[in-house]
């Protein structure tokens, strides 16, 4: 079957999709967006977390056919999503021009880059919240969604919001630091 939906502001179609394929498989293997990760493929680890019409979901648990006509934001579109939000479009659903959407696909210059990242992405780097990084994309999408609805979360709020995302490397302390840091920086910027 053919599935057509909006990914990171751009309408995309995938052909020859088998009915059993997940949104995660279509993103990773058919649309060239491998940022959403495949750590468990059973909805337990959160590494494939994406936004589906604004809500964080495990892409591995969403049948590809279910996203027909809907909006998906992945880690690859997170920076643009955060920019739009900062510009006053809180849901991220106000559309992106084709040229704008292509920006996130450009390769970053090197490890010192920074300006093009969402605040939560930069905070993960700065706080040491990234080790192997396999959980990072899902955590970023989930943490960004938390900060969108709660710009000043308590530690308990952060733990609750991220409790569906497993990390095996960090012991979560630096992830908490990163979310606090992103919240503080965003608060200062407002």
């Amino acid at each position: 079957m053919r599935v057509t939906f909006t990914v990171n502001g751009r309408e995309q179609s995938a052909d020859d999709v088998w009915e059993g394929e997940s949104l995660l498989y279509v993103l990773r293997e058919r649309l060239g967006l491998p940022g959403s990760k495949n750590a468990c493929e059973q909805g337990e680890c959160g590494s494939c977390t994406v936004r589906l019409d604004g809500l964080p979901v495990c892409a591995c648990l969403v049948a590809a056919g279910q996203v027909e006509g809907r909006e998906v934001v992945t880690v690859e579109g997170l920076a643009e999503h955060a920019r739009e939000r900062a510009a006053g479009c809180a849901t991220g659903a106000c559309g992106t021009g084709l040229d704008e959407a292509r920006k996130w696909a450009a390769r970053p210059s090197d490890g010192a880059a920074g300006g093009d990242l969402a605040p939560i992405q930069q905070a993960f780097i700065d706080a040491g919240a990234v080790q192997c990084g396999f959980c990072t994309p899902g955590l970023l999408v989930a943490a960004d969604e938390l900060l969108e609805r709660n710009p000043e979360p308590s530690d308990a709020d952060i733990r609750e919001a991220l409790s569906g995302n497993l990390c095996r490397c960090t012991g979560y302390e630096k992830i908490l630091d990163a979310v606090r840091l992103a919240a503080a920086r965003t608060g200062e910027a407002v």
Partner: protein
Amino acid sequence: MDHAPTRAMSAPAGTPVGLSQGSHTRGGVGESTLRPDGTLKVTGEFAYASDLWHEDMLWGCTLRSPHAHAEIRSIDVSEALAQPGVHAVLTYDDLPCEVRHYGLEIQDTPALAQGRVRYHGEPVALVAADHPETARRAAAKIRVDYAELPVVTDEASATAEDAPLLHPGREDHHAGHVPHPNIVHRQPIIRGDVAAARERADVIVTGEYEVGMQDQAFLGPESGLAVPAEDGGVDLYIATQWLHSDLRQIAPVLGLPEEKVRMTLSGVGGAFGGREDLSMQIHACLLALRTGRPVKMVYNRFESFFGHVHRHPAKLHYEHGATRDGKITHMACRIVLDGGAYASSSPAVVGNASSLSAGPYVIDNVDIEAIALYTNNPPCGAMRGFGAVQACFAYEAQMDRLAAELDMDPVEFRQLNAMSQGAVMPTGQEVDAPAPVAELLRRVKAMPMPPEKQWEAAGEAVDVRELPGGLSNTTHGEGVVRGVGYAVGIKNVGFSEGFDDYSTARVRLEVVGGEPVAVVHTAMAEVGQGGITVHAQIARTELGVARVIIDPADTRVGSAGSTSASRQTYVTGGAVKHTCEAVREKVLELGRARFGTYHPAWATAELLLEGGKVVTDGGEVLADLAEVLQDEAVDIEREWRHRPTVAFDRHTGQGDGHVQYSFAAHRAVVEVDTELGMVKVIELACAQDVGKAVNPLSVAGQIQGGTTQGLGLALMEEIVVDPETAKVRNPSFTDYLIPTILDTPSIPVDVLELADEHAPYGLRGVGEAPTLSSTPAVVAAIRQATGLALNRVPVRPEHLTGT
């Protein structure tokens, strides 16, 4: 904090040591520089092994045994092969040459099962197809006729007189020294006179302890892409811990010389020991060579639980004695590790468990025995802590019981018996570097206690998120009891027992666009630990340049050894430092040749490379590196070795078997809902001596991550194997639980830096020590809260409620 001065440590190959760069260069050793792969990892663009894609690529799939022990009578692949989209189906009979087994130390593992399967999930056949689901469905159509065999699952069944032998006729180097063919390796350690010491003991404490089978549970599944090459060889892009060890095992089974198997490290989503053994490497290469097409294999989580070795489950018997004034008289122990169906790294785990079984204590009289079994359980091998974890759980429980018998404070009792520099291990090896065991305990004990009843702190309503059971809303504080527990551990760093544990680095210094650039090339597997961050720091410190490029790890450069045993910053870091020193010497030679006649300091002063210039130790600038190098590149590849070790004597266990020791201590604060058996860890504080924090941010990350894996073993993590059938019952993240952010407490970290003068920059391997003491500290805290003995981990709610 006691900071030892940073200075150049003696390098064994005779390069100049008076030229170390200290930390004058920005982004050098000792700074919390950020990961060079950080941006790629937060944008989703970092290419992990499972993200790789190649035009025309096929998907590989493994058919695995549903039985723990069975004879394979026949395999019929015809229906699978006939499926549309299927390009190849391979079994044992399709292996291309005479070499059909592999293994880290003992080559006992068949690439595909031959006539017999020895554990649940053993690979039997392979399929390549154009879609992963097509491959899975085709694999399900392979007809294997199994005749089930009786299983051996523990010491009694495995060493019974009529026990079926896992590997009849084994000829490995341990075979002639073990009391039963189903014992992989046995290591006794005898020192002093236990019988006489026992007579002097005022109290004797004995205990039986058990550690469940823990899984590494790295998040990035086993995966890789094999691309057949025109020369008949294969290019393999792979997530592994040790490229050259893989290569040594893969090439013979493919019937190819090593130079025709070219391996490149792809992104690795964590490892923790679980990628030290091969998983899909040979399989993907076989399918690629058979089909002539690139083949990608990616395990799902279910398969991952069968696709790598686990931490050895263990049964431990301990006896300690002490005098009334609190001095330990002796220790006798017997440690039985279940190695499962194939050897993997079981012999080395036995060596660690036995040699570290006394813990970081001075015990002059010991009688130690450790063995690893062959059984039909899942194969076990490397996991963070490697044999020391199991022993630490047992000896630390013993310390608390001894202290209780003597009516002493458990921390003071430990401090009274703690080893320090100059102490002698049970193996007779002297600990010739700082061993601040008592100080680490003092530090965790001195940390401020987390406030009581934090669930009330918020104000009027109870915040159930701060209580055991959390949002399950199981208690509002009724029946909740706090407990505090302490533990300390000792871990070896580096490969032991005479292993030639070297690493290789290639460093190139050249001028690009008027700026000096160092290029560092090693085969070190970056698995998330931050080795590449550290390599760049070392190059900046030693070469005084701002720009460092880390080349991808591959087999075009010499072996870096394994990313395990807490060894990479020490050994490959040491190799990078050593090679940079050689590059620096070459640069100074060039400088002397070009400018030596212009300034006497070229001949007389100690020269440094700093800020892209050659300077004297007095700070005078002699030349820009750009002027010295001009269009010449200095490019050197060197091997580097730490001090050699020796094998343990097979009968007495004596020998200087370890390279370095590392120490960490924990204090756990828990709150237990004693009615429902729910445990909430409130805080898990750690103090560790790291010798030199080369990257303090990464050091904290290692300590907190290791601590959390220890918490997991204490409370939730266990692969449950059915004792009757030897089948794995919980191969999923639904049923195998690892700590979430809600399970993980605040982890305050106190880092000591007491230099080990034998190690580069005085550093001490960091990664594993915090995994050891975390588990016994948590369990000690639960014991204090409940008064229960709790001799087994993980501790489950039913162990606390008796239901």
